[in-house]
């Protein structure tokens, strides 16, 4: 019965047993989901965004619901990179998982220092968040200027032997330009999209719902934007792409693969269905069998545009 299909993907040397990953900031450090699934089934776990020193984040409310989406202004609350290495990483590695550390910094030097620290650990790759819209000094500034993007990518890459994934901000005029700078800077892989900056208003109090006034939009509402950007970027660069933004079903996963993503990450979808990541691993296999596709890579970029 069970015809074997090949779901493994190769992200420029980083090999995953399947292309289903978690999106940073939505999966904690993995443990939080263990009541709902066997997390070792997943292609990779991307952990909560880390900073050099622990961070308390923004004031609450930090979450606002919007039509088919949510806004968040967590402000990168995290226990710091050292805590992650001491308390979280070895647990995930003992389960045989592929672990990707997501990093955010205030300066290029900070990013480089984190890269050096993580380079000596068992984590499998680093995802560099140059797009978090929440933190005033960092985030947007790095991810929106193509020269800065080139500089930070190449400098971090110089401090790292592990694969470097650069995560793009959608809050830019031309995502293709930024993607090209990342490729030129020597990144091994791209991930996109991070959240779109938005706002929600309470007309009774005449105040924003988020204490931070603005936040990052995620969830099904952003899927069309994410698909468009993955498609444009995949037509522009030759490095692999991890696509994300609003995935909540196997159909969504296939759409991202068709427009050129080599792997996908699920973020907000975890909040609606905390078992979604492992369900999608199973459903992808079923989809491939049902459609007589022996290797998942056959789907990548197979959209036929007009």
């Amino acid at each position, binding site marked *: 019965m069970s015809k074997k299909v090949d779901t493994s993907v190769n992200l420029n040397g980083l090999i995953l047993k399947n292309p289903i990953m978690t999106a940073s900031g*939505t999966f904690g450090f993995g443990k939080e*989901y263990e*009541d709902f699934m066997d997390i070792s089934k997943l292609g990779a776990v991307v952990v909560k965004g880390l900073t050099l020193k622990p961070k308390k984040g923004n004031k*609450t409310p*930090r979450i*606002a619901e919007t039509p088919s989406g949510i806004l*968040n202004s967590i402000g990168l609350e995290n226990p710091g990179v050292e805590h992650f290495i001491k308390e979280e990483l070895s647990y995930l590695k003992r389960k045989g998982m592929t672990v990707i550390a997501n990093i955010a910094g205030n300066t290029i030097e900070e990013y480089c220092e984190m890269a050096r620290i993580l380079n000596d650990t068992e984590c499998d790759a680093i995802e560099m968040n140059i797009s978090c819209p929440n933190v005033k000094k960092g985030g947007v500034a790095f991810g929106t200027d193509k020269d800065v993007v080139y500089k930070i990518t190449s400098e971090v890459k110089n401090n790292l032997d592990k694969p470097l994934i650069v995560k793009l901000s959608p809050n830019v005029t031309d995502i293709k330009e930024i993607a090209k700078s990342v490729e030129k800077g020597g990144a091994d892989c791209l991930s996109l999209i991070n959240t779109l900056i938005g706002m929600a208003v309470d007309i009774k109090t005449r105040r924003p719902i988020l*204490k931070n006034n603005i936040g990052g939009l995620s969830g099904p509402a952003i899927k069309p934007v994410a698909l468009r950007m993955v498609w444009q970027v995949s037509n522009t660069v030759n490095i692999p792409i991890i696509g994300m933004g609003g995935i909540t079903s196997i159909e969504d996963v296939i759409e991202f693969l068709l427009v050129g993503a080599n792997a996908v990450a699920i973020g907000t979808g975890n*909040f609606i269905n*905390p078992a979604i990541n492992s369900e999608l691993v199973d459903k992808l296999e079923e989809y491939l069998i049902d459609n007589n596709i022996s290797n998942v890579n056959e789907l990548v970029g197979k959209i036929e545009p007009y």
Partner: protein
Amino acid sequence: MKYIENCTVNKNEKIIDDIYRMELKSNKIVKDSKAGQFLEIKVNNLNYPLLRRPISINEINLDENLLVIYYKTVGKGTKILSQVKKGEKLSVVGPLGNGFDTSYEGLNIGIVGGGIGIAPLVELAKSLYQKNNVNIYLGFNDKPYLINRLNELSNIVKVSTVSGSYGYKGFITEVLEKDIKEGNLDLLYACGPKGMLKKIKDIAKEFNIRCQVSLEERMGCGIGACLGCSIEVNGQMKKVCVDGPVFWSNEVNLDE
């Protein structure tokens, strides 16, 4: 252990005005639940409204495998919930949060509830009553509910309404404060609006009584993964959804 369970709605009825009571059939969640924990309920299976809604467990009925909730219709999610018919299924994640610490015996206990914050106090009273002397204080705007049920589970129930339509006219914290001055409460539990909780925190401090408060915060995941619901407790960042919703009033920062 936390579960995702498709629960059949056994009953969904209006109690008064905008307050509803729902019974959910559960085989898994009900068995692991305790007083003060909550559920994350998906009110429909569409992407709008997207998030689950956090709702406290009102009662755990292990004989009939039922979880009871009380909810107030305040926005689109709870309005959709109020339209759900008997026999329909809802996706529920739970039990979530730490719940109340009820490991006490022989104490004179005060349980204080305001508005819809009264909902989780039924299961709380159940787990304290008969081992302790349980005094319940309920504050409403106008129309009271759940009084009869709580009468069965306590030594005394005192009620106030802001409108004066029932019981003492004014805030329930005034009744509580008077009783504390005259009597000897050893331990307090409270759930209700932030303003009420702040007042009770002050009372607890003034009279040096330990007090557990159950808090609300906007949530993304409800399971400790998104850090949407962070709160400062003893100077440390904690999560309302897993480290709470119940905290000791002297440890938690209730100011914005």
